[in-house]
């Protein structure tokens, strides 16, 4: 794992170029261009916001107000998480030409996917922050944001490495993955608040490492509470284990990647 991180560092210039290429290529030829970075989470926000404000108002606890802002705080990081993993599951196959014809470490490709999605996430942040300011909820607590961000980054990278290598050998993983992510989404406090859960549900949620990451966002941004709950430490450990696992699997399958994609 350490070695792979060193490799990634050595290739930082390439990663940087590929991320900016990824962003440029994605938005070239679109009228709205970079605006899509915000529009995707905004549309998601609108959909869920409408459903749970007007159609299923009883689903969320009454304490969460304004609900749209609460949703936004969770949807933005979740979009980064799930898009990264979903996209990286196909990135090695899509970039097969590179792996087969050019010598370069394949882990760059899932890393670039995670980072490119991180850039989208960061581009959405100013809008979220603007809303928070408008609601008067933005405070010093936002300065602690790098902590959940780092935990999420490590966890996303680990899962991206894991699934990208696995999909090369097992093509049906990516179909499974979208369902898995869907399930994970509803098992994570994005639409609802962790605080509103009780009993065995709450215990189950605590076992999900993403729960604590989302809690941190909710605390630091929506709640404007300057605290990091101990659960996040558990998530950090889980994230490191996932990264080690992903890096290990990727390394094991590395030699066969060029032949199988």
């Amino acid at each position, binding site marked *: 794992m350490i070695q792979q991180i060193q490799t990634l560092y050595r290739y930082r*210039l390439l990663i940087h*170029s590929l991320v900016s290429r990824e962003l440029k290529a994605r938005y*070239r030829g679109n009228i709205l261009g970079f605006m899509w970075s915000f529009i995707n989470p905004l549309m998601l926000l609108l959909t869920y916001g409408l459903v749970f404000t007007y159609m299923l108002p009883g689903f969320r606890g009454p304490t969460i107000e304004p609900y749209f802002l609460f949703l936004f705080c969770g949807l933005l990081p979740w979009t980064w998480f799930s898009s990264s993993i979903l996209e990286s599951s196909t990135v090695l196959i899509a970039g097969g*030409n590179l792996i087969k*014809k*050019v010598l370069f470490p394949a882990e760059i490709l899932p890393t670039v996917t995670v980072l490119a999605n991180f850039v989208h996430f960061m581009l959405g942040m100013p809008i979220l922050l603007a809303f928070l300011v408008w609601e008067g909820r933005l405070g010093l607590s936002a300065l602690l944001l790098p902590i959940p961000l780092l935990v999420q980054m490590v966890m996303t990278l680990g899962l991206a490495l894991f699934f990208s290598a696995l999909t090369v050998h*097992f093509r049906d*993983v990516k179909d499974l993955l979208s369902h898995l992510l869907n399930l994970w989404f509803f098992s994570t406090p994005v639409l609802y608040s962790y605080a509103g859960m009780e009993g065995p549900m709450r215990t189950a949620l605590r076992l999900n490492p993403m729960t604590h990451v989302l809690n941190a966002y909710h605390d630091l941004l929506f709640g404007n509470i300057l605290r990091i709950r101990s659960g996040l430490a558990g998530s950090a450990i889980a994230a490191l284990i996932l990264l080690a696992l992903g890096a290990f699997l990727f390394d094991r399958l590395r*030699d066969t990647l060029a*032949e199988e994609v």
Partner: protein
Amino acid sequence: MSQPAIVAQEVSKLYRRFLHKNQFRTLKSALVNGDLLADLAPDQTFTALKDVSFEVPKGCTYGVIGENGSGKSTLLKLLAGITKPSSGRLSVDGRISALIELGAGFHPEISGRENVMINGIMLGLNRRQIEERFDDIVAFAELERFIDAPVKTYSSGMYMRLGFAVAIHVEPEVLLVDEVLAVGDEGFTRKCLDKIGEFRRRGRTILIVTHSLGLVDKMCDEALWLRHGEVIAKGDPKRVVDEYLLYVAGAEEKHLAQEPAPEGEPDLRPGRDPQEDHALHGYRQGRWGAREIEIAKVRLLASDGRARHVFVPGESFSVALDVIVRESVEDFVFGIGIYTADGIHVYGTNTHIENYKPQIAAADGEVRFVFEDLRLVEGTYLIDVAAHRRDGTPYDYLRGQHSFRVKSRIKDVGVYRPAHHWAFSEGFEIQAPPFRAELDLSDAGSDANDSDTHEPV
């Protein structure tokens, strides 16, 4: 110079054979059958390279030849580090640039300029180095006007040129080239070869995989011939190319022998459709006649009496007809005709034209037509043989039922090669060709030590 740049020791590479049944393993199948990490049975593997050993000294230009599927590209991928050998050791000393697939890393949506940047970084340059070389790269690719357009708007030639330009400007110590010199037009190919020549002069190591034997002969210091993943010959390029040509001639020999009546042996010249040409020249294969005299068998015999189907210019060979005489006749003519594969009549004669007077054909026997000195250029030729009456009524007429091939190292054109030589008065300094003109098909194990010394160009 003595330190080798590339060392391969008994390198083998096995690939998994993709069976029709399980093209891709699925997670479900792995979970159900538990074969996630199961070893593959030998019948599920394909040996692309088997115990390949060779050394390339620093500054050497090394050619690798072989038929399609002989493992050349696999070897290149191993050298480039893209895949790992299944067994054996492989080491390359120095920075490698592999011209395996040009522009492999290009992204169609972004401009040529940005692609040059990223491609350069992928090949190991830093931003400043690319900026320094950027103008050279663009000038080399002749894409000044289009460099800011998205790569998806490029023609395939422009794409390849840009890919080649970037790869060649990486200034590698070891350059791997895979049959990429067929990019763009004559002029650009010339430029690529010049650039590779410049690399040679600067003492860089080059490994070329190619089907162009002339290139190997001209540019390489050493050569390697692979067949079915095994090294058949290595060393002096002239000798290796000769051995390879002999083998190819032998394979064609076998092919022609197996099919005594080829359906219009295809001509290798581009832009020719043999079928169409046949129609054009009214040449149709077939056999007709009442067979009072039957041509039972046609054999092509080399001067040593062995049956062959591939000959070299200048050689003597005969067309031997085994003739069965069913009815004794007094009026008979034997004739022969030669056609190119696209139906051009090269030569025709018969005993009547040449004023032989038939007396009687009474018993079975043999008739031979002897070429004393074969004067045809390289190509496939069809033979007509016939026995008929003086008025032309056929006994047995075999049109285009047999063929032979002429194989030559000299790629002269046309049909007929007159016996010739060049003469120059003083004032013209010109070097005679370094290799001997013709292959020696009769002695397959020949050595090349009888030829002149080879001067690299």
